[in-house]
């Protein structure tokens, strides 16, 4: 990979971090309502996997921690932020909110609040791809908690049985909301749970984006060429709470600090520094430029955008005639 691409990847991860931190600030300022689930700590997962996908062509779906997946597919961060601010210019015209970002032009097919709900949707995208005869694939990002839903087992069974081209990415951050994985799952290695369904699977470090990309490339090639599912488990950790209303009481300070040592941005930054691709000053400049973009372009756009009109409340319940 070219040095310029490696630098871009670092910027994308840092941007994701700063974007989410800015969301947290806006939430505390009550500019953003509802529930807000943020991504810091897991950036290498979505960014690494999607780097190896055909962005804008492959169909992507995820749960409620969805801002960064949408942006990596090609959604305009201004529209994502405007959605969080509930504006008409938002990705879902202010009707969806943080958990329901959509960008159909870039084939980001949404974030969903029901844990495990996207499994069959992704299999359905793959079914449609198969009927249309294309070589796109479906990619479903969910957490370890989703694997305890019936939809996980039902969908794995059908995806395997019907040879559907879908990549399931399990971002295992070790907690389902606030319950530790060993207290919720009789098999803590999630990739082993698809073995009975005869789905190829692997488990790798989700904090090192180089590792993620290498494994994602294999997994995506498997799905695209063999036209059958693959289950990729990425071991990761969220550095913030499940949502903004998380007390954090279920995990120790030591544990969080230990994982902070394995911050995906820190790992990749160090590697680029050692390779002479970036230095401390350049990183600092990158960070400042990102903060400036978020404040002056993205948040400004969200703030300046109009709210949806109350007269349009019932619009979009059904598809309008002739639309």
């Amino acid at each position, binding site marked *: 990979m070219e040095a310029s691409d490696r630098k871009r990847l670092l910027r994308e991860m840092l941007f994701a971090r700063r974007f989410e931190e800015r969301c947290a600030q806006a939430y505390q300022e009550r500019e953003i309502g509802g529930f807000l689930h943020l991504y810091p700590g897991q950036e290498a997962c979505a960014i690494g996997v999607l780097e190896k996908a055909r962005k804008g062509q492959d169909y992507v779906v995820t749960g409620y921690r969805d801002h960064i997946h949408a942006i990596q597919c090609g959604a305009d961060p201004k529209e994502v932020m405007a959605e969080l601010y509930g504006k008409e210019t938002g990705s*879902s015209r202010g009707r969806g909110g943080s958990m329901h970002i959509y960008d159909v032009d870039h084939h980001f097919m949404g974030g969903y609040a029901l844990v495990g709900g996207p499994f069959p949707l992704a299999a359905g995208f793959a079914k449609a791809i198969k009927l249309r005869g294309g070589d796109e694939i479906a990619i479903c990002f969910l957490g370890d908690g989703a694997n305890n839903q019936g939809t996980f087992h039902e969908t794995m069974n059908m995806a395997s049985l019907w040879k559907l081209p879908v990549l399931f990415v399990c971002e295992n951050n070790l907690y389902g909301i606030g319950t530790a994985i060993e207290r919720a799952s009789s098999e803590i290695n999630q990739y082993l749970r698809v073995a009975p369904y005869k789905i190829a699977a692997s488990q790798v470090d989700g904090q090192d984006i180089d590792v993620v990309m290498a494994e994602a490339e294999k997994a995506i090639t498997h799905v695209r060429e063999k036209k059958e599912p693959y289950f990729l488990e990425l071991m990761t950790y969220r550095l913030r709470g499940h949502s903004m209303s998380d007390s954090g009481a279920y995990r120790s300070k030591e544990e969080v600090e230990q994982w902070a040592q394995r911050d995906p941005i820190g790992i990749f930054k160090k590697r680029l520094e050692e390779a002479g691709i970036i230095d401390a000053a350049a990183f600092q400049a990158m960070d400042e430029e990102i903060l400036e973009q978020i404040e002056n372009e993205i948040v400004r756009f969200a703030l300046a955008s109009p709210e949806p009109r109350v007269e349009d409340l019932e619009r*979009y319940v059904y598809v309008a005639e002739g*639309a």
Partner: protein
Amino acid sequence: MAEMMYWQAILRAHDEELARDPLVFAMGEDIGVAGGTYKATSGLYAKYGPERVIDTPISENSYTGIGVGAAMLGCRPIVEIMSVNFAWLAMDQLMNNAAKIHYMSGGKIRCPFVMRVPGGTAHQLGAQHSARMEKVFMGISGLRVVTPATPRDAYGLLKSAVRSDDPVVLIEHESMYNLKGEVPDEEFFTPLEGVEVMRPGRDLSIFAYNISVHWALQAAERLAKEGIEAEVIDLRALKPLDRAGIAASVRKTHRALIVEEDEAPVGVGAEVMALINEDAFFELDAAPVRVHAKDVPIPYNRRLEKAAIPNADDVVAAAKKLLGK
């Protein structure tokens, strides 16, 4: 104009839509090789193959979700739920995804998804095979809910449902698959909104849907012999309900009777009464009356089952009560 059975009308609609559009597909339990519990998909597996007439595992929620996902990419799936009680298992994907995706994406993603469910009580199938879930479906924003009372509408509503860009739940009836009726030979579409006057009358309006339309028609026949002219209205589309059509009939007859196979609480009758109250209260000459099932889980025993579900006799009695006779 040919006479055909309800199941044959459904089969014809499937066949025409599968032949027309390669993105239409059907899925459900036993619909392919076995041809469907009520034969409504018989022969289609041989004609269209396993990729388009799909036998599913017994996983209602996820195959519903697979249909929804395919619909989001422009396919037009027809998902069959074998027995309406099983639709409870699919409610997550139906209610949280199919019904909500168009709205919560700000109109950017369409979900042209069709679910067919045989509703109602048949013959001693017990409490877990006799549900009437229309009240549940019609309470969900974003869905369209229609229910054919005749072979003609079984064909025409399924045709319209497949062409609709909205998610549609089509409620059939286990006891009506062998019902015979005339179906025009040429292609046609029954609208997904609006009531239909099945029999005009001046003395009272009987609002019914699905199997209760037949109880209402039988009752109207008997009432006519006693000089009472009942107007029978097939509600047909339960969501959105045609409030103007309901009010128009009440303005004509000034008396309203609602017949439903379901239990009364939170039901179709309650909703129709509320609409009449809101739109035509001062047109009424008497308080509206409901005929409905008893509020019990449907029992197995034949006598008990019969006692739990209304019939034409109950409709006649209620009509006379409404007219003070």
